[in-house]
């Protein structure tokens, strides 16, 4: 059984936010109007957090692309009163929209703030409906939504592999954000498969898990930025 996971190399990320927009277009996430955006109601399954620290001129910024980290021990699931969210055997934390009653307990419980509530009926002005992806349902008002690891792409990849009478191979199933990243800073695959790129990177000395101390066991793993080391051939240092 695969365990899907993602590795994001913070040394390579340019903070361009292509991942954010690719996710929005892939998953039919509506843009909220300016007034609501000002109230913090933008829905964005993967956001690039700037994380600025220090004072001029001693400043640092660690732009961090943050999707749902698909905790193996997800606090969001425990608080849901109606079992509208669940983790599947492959480790993907999913939202069952039809069951969600919009109480937003999970939104509050997620330490990564990766769950968003639909305050309105989604709006697609003009002909924006033409660009909707038929593989993903549009969420109604009143439910919580979040990153699905582009689960619809897994189904499609499985179908295609089956039709070709072969096993699912590395690279067959890639979420939209990972696929678009212009800097090649994101990797995706089966953490259980020791030969996969993600598994190898997850073992690297630059690897760390966000808010690991909470015991959530995230499956989105970061590689620290490292520093220039005088070009000594050692690669980025941690």
């Amino acid at each position, binding site marked *: 059984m695969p365990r899907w996971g993602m590795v994001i190399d913070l040394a390579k990320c*340019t*903070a361009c936010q292509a991942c954010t927009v690719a996710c929005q277009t892939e998953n039919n996430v509506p843009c909220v109007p*300016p007034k609501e955006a000002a109230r913090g*109601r933008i829905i964005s399954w993967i956001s690039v957090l700037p994380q600025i620290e220090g004072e001029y*001129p001693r400043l640092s910024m660690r*732009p961090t692309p943050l999707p749902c980290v698909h905790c193996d021990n997800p606090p969001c699931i425990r608080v849901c009163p109606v079992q509208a969210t669940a983790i599947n055997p492959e480790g993907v934390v999913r939202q069952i929209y039809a069951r969600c*009653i919009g109480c937003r307990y999970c939104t509050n419980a997620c330490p990564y703030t990766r769950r968003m509530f639909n305050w309105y009926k989604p709006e697609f002005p003009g002909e924006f409906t033409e660009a909707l992806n038929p593989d993903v349902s549009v969420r109604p008002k*009143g439910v919580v939504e979040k990153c699905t690891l582009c689960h619809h792409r897994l189904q499609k990849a499985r179908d295609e592999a089956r039709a070709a009478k072969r096993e699912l191979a590395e690279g067959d199933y890639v979420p939209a954000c990972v696929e678009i990243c212009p800097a090649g800073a994101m990797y995706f695959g089966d953490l259980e498969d020791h030969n996969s790129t993600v598994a190898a990177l997850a073992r690297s000395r630059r690897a760390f898990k966000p808010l690991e101390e909470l015991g959530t066991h995230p499956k989105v793993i970061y590689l*620290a930025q490292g520093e220039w080391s005088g070009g000594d051939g050692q690669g*980025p240092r941690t």
Partner: protein
Amino acid sequence: MSFTFDRRNFLRFAAGGAVGVATSGVSLKGISTLNAAIDSELVRVPSGPESWATGVCNMCPGGCGLRVRLIGNRAVKIQGNPLHPINRGGLCPKGLAGLQELYHPDRLRTALRNTGTRDNPRWKGLSSDEALGLVSERMRKLRDAGEARSLVVVDRQRSGLLPRLLSRFMTAYGSPNYVTMPTGMDALQAAIYAQQGVSEQVAYDFSNSRYVLSFGVNLLEGWGAPVAMMRAFSRWRDAASGRRAKLVQIEPRFSMTAARADEWVPIRPGTEATLALGMAYVLISEGLYDADFVREHTFGFEDWRDAEGNSHTGFKSLVKSEYRLNDAATVTGVPADTILRLAREAAQNRPVLAIGDRHNSSLPGNVYAAMAVHSLNGLLGSIDVPGGVLVQQQLPGQALVSNAKDPLLPSAQTHVANAGELPQAIVSKRPYPMQMLLLNQVNPVFALPNGAAFRSAMKDVPFIVSFSAFLDDTAVLADLVIPAPTGLESWQDGGTPPTVANAIVSISPPAVRPRKDVRHPGDVMLSVARSLGGSLAAALPFAGYEEFLRNEVNGLYTAQAGAVFGSTLEDSWNRLMERSGWWAPSYSNADELWQQIKKQGGWWEPAYSHGEWSHVLRTKSGRFEFYSQALADLAKQRRRTEKIEDRECLPHQPTIPEATTNFPLLLMPVEQLPLAGGEGAHLPYLQQIAGVHVFANWDSWLEIHPETARTFGIGDGDSVWIESGRGRVQARARFYEGARPGVVHLPLGYGHKSGGEWACRGVNPLEIVEEQPDPVTGLPSAHWTYVKVYRA
């Protein structure tokens, strides 16, 4: 290094969401009733067969290739073309947002004709065919009256095939006035011309460079070829490439590029030239420069005597007398030991690239400062070596059709090269008045530092046509607007993007049927040429833009070089073959080439041969000129004198205007990747992400250091006026630790006056910048604007 997520930061980011949870009074019961009503409100998405098309991104000059996912005849997703040598499957957010442009509610549906006045327009819809008829008629009249030269075309792009069509049209029509929009790289290009004598676009071999000194260039914020740049950045940090390259960002503001660099060197605004020359001082006095290159391939390093026996200052004595280490430290505010270390590091980590001075993709820097920076490339032997400064290859197969010239042309005088100079030329009516202006997908009123001058100059032009998808700030002042297609609904082509060395032609057929009554500008010009006949029809004998493109591809075929886009492996194979003198194309005739280009996205020249000195050093001396003889000639010509000063030909620190008591703060407009080049504000995807570092969206903000703000009694989030000698604009102040005390920043790209509600949010900083013509190019730049800021 330990790394902890700061939960407070998270919450601040998601502020609204979190606050909403805490304060919302919606009960569980309330929501579930609401949920019961959901079914009737569901948005249903129609399905259909899936297919893929290739595309060329036209959202910026970056030249990326696209793959477009189609469901039935709807385009539902834009992705990167994995075979395209520029982006290899990746894309920037702007390219992705092209989908919203296609389906945008504010797009022009039909052609529009202004039946009112310019100040008080009354728009009447007409078919694009009727509009085309009007254009032909006007052009015919003008030409018949012997005034062909008074037609001006302002074009959006400089590379690619459409500019070739348009300039060929203008030559055959009889007007020299084909002009393009200025870009942020203009001063840099002028410096390259002054020191290397080449007028092709400069290119940088970023991915093979080991040490990059950026003097305030916003490398990761939409400059040059954005995705190519990001790929190079990624390669610098790829463990597989062996050693990590270093990016040093020298800039007063903590920009995104500064944040992502290996080292950020905060510098006193405008003193980049001094820092570059201070580093040159170190390289020279410690003997760290490339003595072989300097001896073999440069001019003006040592003091020298001209043919008349007059002695001239060389670069070495200039640097040694005026840019000593401690002086440079005092002027720039960068500690002497930092300058020393940077110079030594650079010398030890070649190939080095030095880029600057400060500019972004909209606003150019200063020519002398750019020469100061480029001199480091000369000192460190970075000219035309792998990882160094290259010269962009030209497309083969130019002028395949006879470039039939209009007999009038010799008497017509070119007097503008650049849209920035147009207002002056139009208003002065010298050497002759302009009768007709044709704007190809450009918005100079909004985008030029002298946009206001452009707007008023438009009043002096009797007939103005705009090709535009939206009724933007400039189109709204035209007499006739012909709806231009957006990227996915017409033939698209792209040339070699800025900063890229290898010649590239991207071509793609329409991915979807046009949504509106659009006309491709190429098709418009070709049909005008047909209806005017004569030399025009002879120069452009094509039924439509597709046929024109097809003909250009014939030219590529006859050039017998290059290859169709392929996988990385195929590309390196082709490169290897070409280097060893083989050319093994995947096609055996022009038609096969055309079919393969349509399928794979384009053609390119994968190989570049380094060190062809006669090609990359075309100055008078045939060398890299620290002392520019081209600038000497220019100064002599302009001032009609033989007496010029050495200073006019040597890199130096430009003078910096001082702040005044009335206007104590320096305003530096800044660029963000989503709205780079001033474009993209009409797209919600981009509005949502443009100001993340200051938690802003959908609106302009004023970046101000908290201490500076306090001095002026301004709080975080206050609405403030930003006032210069030219006028004032209003924005919300955002405390930003990355703003240098005493300097404030407004983002470019906001504050359109026309083109739909989304585009018109925020303010345009160009409305209050002071225009200063560059001393060499004469182009309007916007480098020094002092302002005061006060609560509104």
